[in-house]
């Protein structure tokens, strides 16, 4: 036996409280009703054999007390709404209320909440919990908590601009010992479940969906947005890729979107198709602006109708090269349109180690091989671990392109990259690498190394592709190699986790804000994954609780009527 509205301890405590209260009331019922009679002489004689009750000795109406107690207990039981024990055979239920962008169509979430509410009445309190599946999974109702709390906690919740995190819940279910022996995950909503996720579950875990298969909502939205180096070769512009997907009968056309840069319509942009469902905006100025792409026609799912991208800021960098290094570096700087060889007011300098040239300015220093163990010594700032810093250095500074083996052979010792943390960024390189015999200055990696080290030292990071809710991976394709540092970008922003939901991510300590867009093909196209069995609580559980509670209350009312009858007839005091 379980109760829909009360747990056993509360029920027993309430029953004991009622019994005590009624006892005290019976004890304290000492107010006499004054009645005038002509036959007091008879009453006096009758009372001689049955003295009046006095406090603590007058509790003589046990039957009346028991009748009152029975009525109160029946009402209390009825209000607790008892249920026939466990129609679900002892299975633990995790009710997963989908609060992701999948549920942002009007009415979807309300229907799911109503269904959860219905099912909570049918499930034992101690064998169920409710999870809010928004950007992150949160427990709305613990096992054993009163079902009434659900209404309070779900109040005000709205679908979040994030893909479903049901996969995280499935991962948790797969952990041994995380849940009881037999557990059933019931999904209330459209959150898709992949075949792989189901295959990874142990046998004691079932996954069902509360509603039957639902048709995807006719919808159209932006599912990817990223940027890359301008194909035109211009250093101060980027190309932007936008992909649009649709579900239902809606088609996608480039003309279906509106473009704006820093709030103003973006006119004159060259747009090229990028089949199957995308297009590329060519030569968008890389001046740190906010590029917004918005669907012209709103539809059922507003969450994916708009995406934003913070464009990188590419500016000409003033660089000075020490004369002691020869002309090879100065030539490389002059060849880069983004760099300006300037004697006056440089921002970055290239110099020999120990030179005073450039003072405290960020510098790339060249030291003799016999004074420096590693070919490249890189000092980075921030909280990166050494491994991540090394990976970023190899890719971000173009070091992955150098002919390390050749240089090592020439040097007669290993060519390595050493990273360490510090308060300012700095790079120290073997001086000998500037010799022609190392073939470094003639390699394709050299100009990339020069330009990227200069920009890295001024802490001008590479552009990132986009920030999408719930994931880190940059968009990548064979056709458009979008530069996306991914986790580097989130580290830059000081976040340890991927941005949970669409919106704006503020950089720590102020500064730029970074837009986070939904960009989820699963949400936009209404993917439901594999078809799941429908969840249907046992029929006995469906009819049992309310009927039993009704019967109890009716029985209490019948006893109440009997008590009134008995009182009227003088059968009880």
């Amino acid at each position, binding site marked *: 036996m379980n109760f829909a509205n009360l747990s056993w301890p509360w029920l027993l405590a309430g029953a004991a409280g009622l019994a005590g209260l009624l006892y005290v009331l019976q004890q304290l*019922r*000492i*107010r*006499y*009703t*004054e*009645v*005038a*009679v*002509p*036959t*007091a*002489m*008879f*009453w*006096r*004689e*009758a*009372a001689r*054999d*049955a003295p*009046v*009750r006095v406090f603590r000795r*007058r509790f*003589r*109406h046990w039957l009346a007390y028991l009748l009152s107690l029975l009525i109160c207990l029946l009402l209390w039981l009825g209000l607790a709404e008892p249920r026939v024990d466990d129609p679900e055979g002892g299975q633990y239920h995790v009710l997963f209320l989908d609060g992701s962008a999948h549920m942002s169509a009007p009415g979807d979430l309300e229907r799911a909440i109503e269904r959860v509410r219905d099912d909570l009445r049918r499930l034992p309190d101690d064998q169920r919990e409710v999870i809010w599946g928004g950007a992150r999974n949160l427990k709305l109702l613990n096992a054993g908590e009163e079902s009434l709390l659900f209404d309070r906690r779900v109040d005000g919740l709205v679908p979040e601009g994030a893909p479903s995190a049901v996969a995280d819940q499935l991962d948790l279910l797969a952990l041994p010992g995380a849940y009881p022996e037999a557990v059933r995950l019931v999904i209330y909503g459209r959150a898709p479940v992949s075949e792989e996720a189901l295959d990874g579950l142990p046998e004691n875990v079932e996954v069902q969906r509360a509603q039957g298969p639902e048709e995807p909502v006719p919808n159209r939205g932006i599912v990817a947005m990223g940027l890359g180096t301008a194909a035109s070769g211009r250093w101060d512009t980027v190309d932007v890729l936008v992909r649009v997907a649709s579900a239902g009968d809606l088609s996608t056309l480039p003309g279906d979107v509106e473009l704006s840069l820093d709030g103003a319509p973006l006119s004159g942009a060259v747009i090229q198709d990028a089949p199957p469902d995308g297009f590329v905006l060519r030569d968008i100025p890389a001046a740190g602006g906010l590029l917004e792409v918005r669907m012209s026609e709103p539809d059922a799912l507003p969450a994916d109708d708009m995406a934003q991208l913070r464009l990188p800021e590419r500016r000409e960098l003033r660089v000075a090269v020490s004369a002691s290094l020869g002309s090879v570096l100065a030539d490389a700087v002059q060849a880069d349109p983004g760099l300006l060889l300037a004697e006056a007011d440089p921002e970055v300098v290239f110099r020999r180690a120990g030179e005073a040239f450039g003072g405290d300015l960020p510098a790339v220093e060249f030291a003799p091989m016999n004074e420096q163990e590693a070919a490249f010594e890189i000092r980075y700032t921030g909280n990166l671990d050494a491994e991540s810093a090394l990976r970023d250095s190899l890719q971000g500074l173009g070091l992955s392109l150098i002919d390390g083996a050749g240089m090592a052979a020439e040097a007669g010792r290993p060519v390595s990259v050493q990273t360490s943390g510090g308060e300012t960024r700095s790079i120290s390189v073997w001086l000998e690498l500037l010799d022609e015999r190392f073939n470094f200055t003639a390699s394709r990696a050299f100009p990339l190394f020069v330009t990227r080290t200069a920009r890295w030292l001024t802490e001008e990071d590479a552009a990132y592709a986009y920030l999408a809710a719930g994931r880190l991976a940059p968009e990548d394709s064979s056709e458009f190699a979008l530069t996306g540092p991914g986790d580097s970008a989130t580290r830059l922003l000081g976040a340890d986790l991927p941005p949970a939901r669409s919106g704006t991510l503020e950089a720590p300590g102020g500064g730029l804000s970074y837009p986070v867009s939904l960009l989820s093909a699963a949400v936009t196209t209404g993917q439901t994954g594999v078809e799941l069995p429908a969840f249907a609580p046992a029929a006995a559980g469906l009819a049992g609780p309310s009927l039993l509670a009704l019967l109890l209350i009716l029985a209490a009312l019948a006893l109440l009527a009997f008590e009134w009858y008995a*009182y009227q*007839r*003088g*059968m*009880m*005091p």
Partner: protein
Amino acid sequence: MGMAAPTVDEFFDTEFLTSLQGFSLWARRIISGGRHAEQLSKDKGAGLEFADYKAYVPGDDTRTIDWNIYRRLGRVVVKVFEERQELPVYLLVDRSSSMYFEDAPKIGVALKVALALASISLSQHDSVGLFSFSDNLEMKLKNGSGQGRLMRVAERLAELEEQGATELVQAIEGVERLRLRRGLLVVISDFYDPAGLDAVLGSLRQTRHRLLLVQLIGNHDLDPAGRRDMRGDVRLRDCESGEAVDVSLTPAILASYRAIVNDFNERLTTFATGHGAAFLRLNTDEDVLPQLAAAFEAGRIEI
């Protein structure tokens, strides 16, 4: 609580009085000394119904000598006739507070019964006197006869007002002290004298009069469970003395009460039977006339 007595118009119901015409009150033998009427007296003398012969003695009415016997036997005898006289009826009506209690007070029935008995008595040429009592005895109307007297009886009855406690013992003793001519004393009361029934019966035993006891009792007197306010723990206050009794109304105490009331009634009945008194128990919550009709079996009560 207390209710006013009905007015003359309210209880002087001619239809009610007419329906009493077939009823009569008969004493078996009354004491001589009254005027000629219809009650059979112990005296033999001037009457209409022959009773016996007796030897003539000087002074006898010579008109009663039976000359046929004288011719046949040579003895002078005179005829003796039954002498019928009036019966003095003394109505003693209780006007204590208990008679004025509840919505349908007993006094209403008491007045009706008193008027009915007065009407019956006067119709058979008896004399009727009226007394009221509570904690003192008052003579409201001296004995007199004649149909015209009925209205005066009604007027005096209507003048009765609630007063004090029931002291029936003193009232009976007071009547006794008046040395009235022996007759019929009609006591109309609930008999709830705080002195107790034993004292009441003791005083009734001492009276020289024949007795007609009319006990008035209500349904709630018999079974108080019928009252809506008699529930749970109650403080019962006597409507006359004001004394209180705290009672927890359990089925047991209700049963005990009913037994006490039944015993009270039984003792009253037994007394009446044992002392040749007539006894009427009238339920004041029911119509009076059918109860009277049942009491006047064959149209008469013989005392």
